């Protein structure tokens, strides 16, 4: 990547963050619109994007954000109020900005022009009614302070600035858009002689006198993009106008981020809050490229495998010191594995917050009033899981708004408050993360679901099912509820897809009714990471197979009298009928059947089954290697892993196996009505 591309990427990353902040701020302001802190923060988001975009000459972004910024400036000045309409409009402007910043070439932005024009027209009343005090054509927009003053800007530049594409001349040029650059002094003290010079290292610093009406924050914001490479100190030399006393004599701050934190005029309490913010910000973060982290975790995966191999070797050698060293090594490797996986853990809160917007939009579409309550936002899980959970969650949240929460009229009839609630909650439980989506609607009706399921031939009329079994029927493919049976009936649409998505993350989803808030709760259980699996190993034929441990109920070796005939499809395990999956037959492997057979009892989604294997090999923690490419259509195996001895083992996809067997069975049932076989037992 060229330095310019790196810088542009930084701009993109930062803009995305700012835009996501902007969305949250706008949503928060709907209930707390009067808070100056929110207004200032909102203004800064747009201002920073505009400033950075200007650095890159992204005029299409600058032009649009300029108008939005102007409106936000008036908002924080109290000249206009945030109505619901304006909030809607600003949210749409935010969406538009996010489209604009993703456009790589200004010339390609033309396609977005019509949408922008509509939004700008909508903003018209909000930024033009101030009369002539703000000249729109003037790109040196007045920010807070009204009159010009001269300020001294000291710019100290990191040696790597040029390598990162952060050319100081570009910044100086851009400073010119804020006012009049009265003087520039290039400080050459650090410049070495030719022989010692590294031509790509930056040796220069600058001092600039700028006559401007822009406030300090606006000036600093210009350098925000390069805040880790540029140290900026702004001093007002002859302040002509009222300047924030907090802001004026600022000592040199190594971190521009912090100084930006100190905010707008007046308000003591505000200064307090920003103080708190600073304290909280003491936890230092830095950005890492995601693929570097993935690479590290892959390597750690290799390390885990190699370490297992070392242990195996040491064990076999019988050499006590070697075994002890290997055991020590193992402990360390496990610690490294845990810490490196921890690096990729992110709080789920960010994902949850996205749903504020979803709920708001869906609710207004449906003419409902719904509040989203978020708890457990700090709960952490693997970034790779977070990325994939968005879609199923969106579906469930929309579903809760659409089919869970009743219409206001129906709610008041029932004596409930007209404002409905959807609750997103997350917490850790025994090595998994649980995510709950709850609504305070009317809950599910067992009878109606059952009737529907029978109509769709998903259950037989004489089936004895618990409430749980009945509710879980809505995840069955084919549980379509096109007709309006009740106001809840639409719940079935697409639920099988939701379940499949969650299962592909090695997770489970269940439905509880009445749920946490009285209505329905969808409870998703996900592994904390997709990189590693606790498995139970078994041998079938030549190959080793791994069953995810969380699905294993028990393992038994069948006694002599329990040995199975080839045609036996069920056994009675402690008075429970257990359907069997003969892996050897199922996988169409040839070879002799073992005399003694072993059963691994697995459970998934309330169904149990017995996997028949040749040999039980015990538990193991393994690193998952996806079986991509030519195996992408293969069902029944979810991945592979490398064993300590270097051999590849295959990971069984238990949910799919159970499903396949259940389906074969259904087919058999239809064929031989007289041989009534029990369905898969429900636990």
């Amino acid at each position, binding site marked *: 990547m060229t*330095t310019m591309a790196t810088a542009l990427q930084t701009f993109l990353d930062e803009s995305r963050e700012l835009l996501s902040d902007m969305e949250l701020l706008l949503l928060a302001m709907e209930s707390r619109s009067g808070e100056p802190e929110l207004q200032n923060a909102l203004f800064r988001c747009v201002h920073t994007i505009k400033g950075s975009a200007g650095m890159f000459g992204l005029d299409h972004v600058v032009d649009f954000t300029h108008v939005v910024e102007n409106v936000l400036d008036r908002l924080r000045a109290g000249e206009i109020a945030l109505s619901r309409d304006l909030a809607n409009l600003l949210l749409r402007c935010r969406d538009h900005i996010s489209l604009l910043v993703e456009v790589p070439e200004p010339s390609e932005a033309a396609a977005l022009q019509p949408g922008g024009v509509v939004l700008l027209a909508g903003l018209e009343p909000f930024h033009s009614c101030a009369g002539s005090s703000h000249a729109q054509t003037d790109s040196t927009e007045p920010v807070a302070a009204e009159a010009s003053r001269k300020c001294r800007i000291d710019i100290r530049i990191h040696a790597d600035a*040029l*390598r990162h*594409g952060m*050319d*100081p*001349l*570009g910044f*100086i*040029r851009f400073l010119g858009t804020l006012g009049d650059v009265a*003087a*520039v*002094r*290039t400080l*050459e003290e650090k*410049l*070495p*002689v*030719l*022989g010692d*010079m590294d*031509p*790509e290292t*930056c*040796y*220069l610093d*600058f001092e600039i006198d700028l006559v401007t009406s822009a406030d300090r924050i606006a000036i600093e914001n210009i350098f925000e993009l390069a805040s880790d490479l540029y140290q900026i100190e702004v001093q007002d030399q002859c302040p002509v106008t009222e300047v924030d006393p907090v802001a004026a004599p600022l000592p040199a701050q190594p971190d521009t981020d912090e100084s930006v934190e100190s905010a707008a005029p007046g308000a003591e309490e505000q200064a307090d809050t920003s103080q708190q913010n600073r304290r909280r910000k003491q936890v230092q973060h830095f950005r890492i490229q995601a693929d570097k982290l993935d690479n590290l975790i892959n390597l750690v995966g290799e390390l885990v495998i190699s370490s297992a191999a070392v242990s195996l070797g040491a064990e076999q050698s019988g050499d006590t010191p070697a075994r002890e060293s290997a055991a020590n090594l193992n402990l360390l490797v496990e610690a490294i594995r845990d810490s490196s996986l921890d690096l990729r853990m992110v709080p789920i809160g960010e994902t949850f917050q996205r749903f504020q917007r979803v709920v708001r939009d869906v609710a207004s579409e449906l003419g409902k009033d719904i509040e989203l309550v978020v708890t457990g936002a700090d709960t952490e899980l693997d970034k790779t899981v977070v990325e994939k959970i968005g879609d199923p969650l969106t579906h469930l949240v929309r579903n809760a708004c659409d089919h869970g929460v009743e219409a206001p009229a129906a709610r008041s009839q029932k004596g409930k408050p007209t404002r409905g609630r959807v609750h997103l909650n997350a917490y850790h439980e025994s090595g998994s993360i649980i995510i709950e989506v709850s609504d305070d609607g009317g809950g599910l009706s067992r009878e109606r679901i059952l009737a529907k399921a029978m109509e769709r031939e998903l259950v037989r009329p004489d089936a004895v099912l618990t409430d749980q079994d009945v509710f879980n029927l809505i995840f069955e493919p084919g549980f379509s509820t096109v007709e309006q049976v009740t106001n809840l009936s639409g719940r079935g649409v697409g639920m099988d897809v939701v379940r499949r998505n969650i299962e592909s993350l090695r997770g489970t989803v269940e439905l509880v009714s009445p749920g946490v808030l009285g209505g329905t709760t969808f409870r998703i259980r996900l592994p904390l990471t997709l990189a590693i699996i606790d498995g139970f190993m078994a041998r079938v034929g030549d190959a080793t197979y791994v069953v995810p441990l969380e699905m294993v109920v028990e393992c038994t070796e069948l006694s002599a009298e329990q040995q199975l005939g080839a045609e036996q499809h069920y056994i009675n395990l402690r008075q429970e009928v257990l359907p069997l999956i003969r892996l050897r037959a199922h996988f169409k492997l040839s070879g002799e059947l073992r005399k003694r057979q072993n059963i691994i009892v697995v459970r998934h989604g309330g169904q149990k089954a017995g996997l028949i294997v040749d040999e039980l090999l015990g538990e193991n923690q393994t690193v998952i290697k996806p079986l991509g490419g030519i195996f992408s259509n293969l069902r029944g195996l979810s991945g592979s892993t490398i064993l300590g001895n270097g051999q590849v083992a295959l990971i069984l996809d238990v949910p799919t196996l159970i499903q396949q067997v259940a389906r074969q069975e259904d087919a058999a049932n239809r064929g031989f009505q007289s041989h009534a076989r029990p369905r898969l037992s429900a636990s």
Partner: protein
Amino acid sequence: MKDTLRFSPESGCLAVVGELTIYQAKAAAEGLRSAFASGQLRHVDLAAVTELDAAGLQWLLVAARLTVNDGEPVTLTNHSEPVCDALALAGIEVSS
């Protein structure tokens, strides 16, 4: 890519051609070093410079400090417009 620098030992003139930015910085520094090492370098001709950034500016400042033989400074000549713009931006006066 064309060479950024052309040095003719006879005239002692080092001509910079095209962009003089971070992308050419390494080559330009090498070129300057070898021209200087030859002992023939007298002046740097900037007529054909089409772009100058801070890396190029540094290069110029370093070149301008060089002295040859009896302490005679290497001179920068024929500043092109992009060079003048960049120098003006950096607040450096062109003395020629």
